[in-house]
């Protein structure tokens, strides 16, 4: 049996850095179904932007390839998979270290994975050299508490 999700979307695009804004805005639009706060949405956009940049700059090294995004919603959680069929990462643990970068000459800060880890609730990297890399991240969207209070007040008023 396939794992059940409330909703799912898939997106594929050519590995051009001009598509980064398209990618993060599309995922954010999908995530908005969970009614996230502006900050939560901004965190998701940043994490997606980091992962997509990695596919383009490191996975494909600016050669043409396809970046794939699958986003799923389950209750109040969004799970996002971003993958490429690029060169892969030899040592994922080292790559995840803050400030580690293989491209300092391009003014890369080496903060991509650190930002994904901090802005999302979970992040996993699977990579096979020569085959590609897949990043899976998830974030739980807080339930709007104020709304509940309002609806309770509303109930009390209607009882009167």
């Amino acid at each position, binding site marked *: 049996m396939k794992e059940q999700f409330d909703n799912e979307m898939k997106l594929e695009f050519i590995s051009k850095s001009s598509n980064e804004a398209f990618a993060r805005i599309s995922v954010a639009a999908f995530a908005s179904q969970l009614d996230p706060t502006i*900050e939560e949405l*901004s965190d998701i956009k940043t994490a997606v932007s980091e992962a997509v940049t990695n596919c383009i*700059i490191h996975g494909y090294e600016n050669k043409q390839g396809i970046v794939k995004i699958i986003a799923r919603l389950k209750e109040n959680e969004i799970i996002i998979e971003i993958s490429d069929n690029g060169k892969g990462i030899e040592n994922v643990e080292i790559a995840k270290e803050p400030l580690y970068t293989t491209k300092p000459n391009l*003014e890369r800060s080496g*903060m*991509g994975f650190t*930002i994904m880890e901090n802005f999302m609730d979970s992040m996993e990297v699977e990579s096979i050299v020569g085959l590609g890399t897949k990043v899976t991240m998830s974030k739980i969207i807080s339930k709007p508490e104020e709304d509940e209070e309002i609806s309770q007040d509303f109930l009390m008023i209607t009882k009167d």
Partner: protein
Amino acid sequence: MESKFYEKDKLLVFKITEEIDDFSVQKIRRKADYEIERYMPKRVVFDFDNVTFMDSAGIGLIIGRYKFANMLGGTLEVANLTNNVKKIFEMSGILKLIPITELAVS
């Protein structure tokens, strides 16, 4: 990105008006380096007031311009950091190196 040079104070202000990612940063970098070289400012300020999005490309952008301005004898500061921008700069530790300034020029 808009830029303005204040001759009297040798102050060069960059007001970034676009989202900052790996794509947009290439153009911003070129323009900033060109203007820094042209005016040789004592002080460079990057104003983030209109920045609605920034990812880690912004860290490299600021560190790179900091080094370049320094090399030409100037200093670099950042102003009007939005929440998203501040969070990323704080995480990277560059605010230990680069001061936040109160910028009140229009």
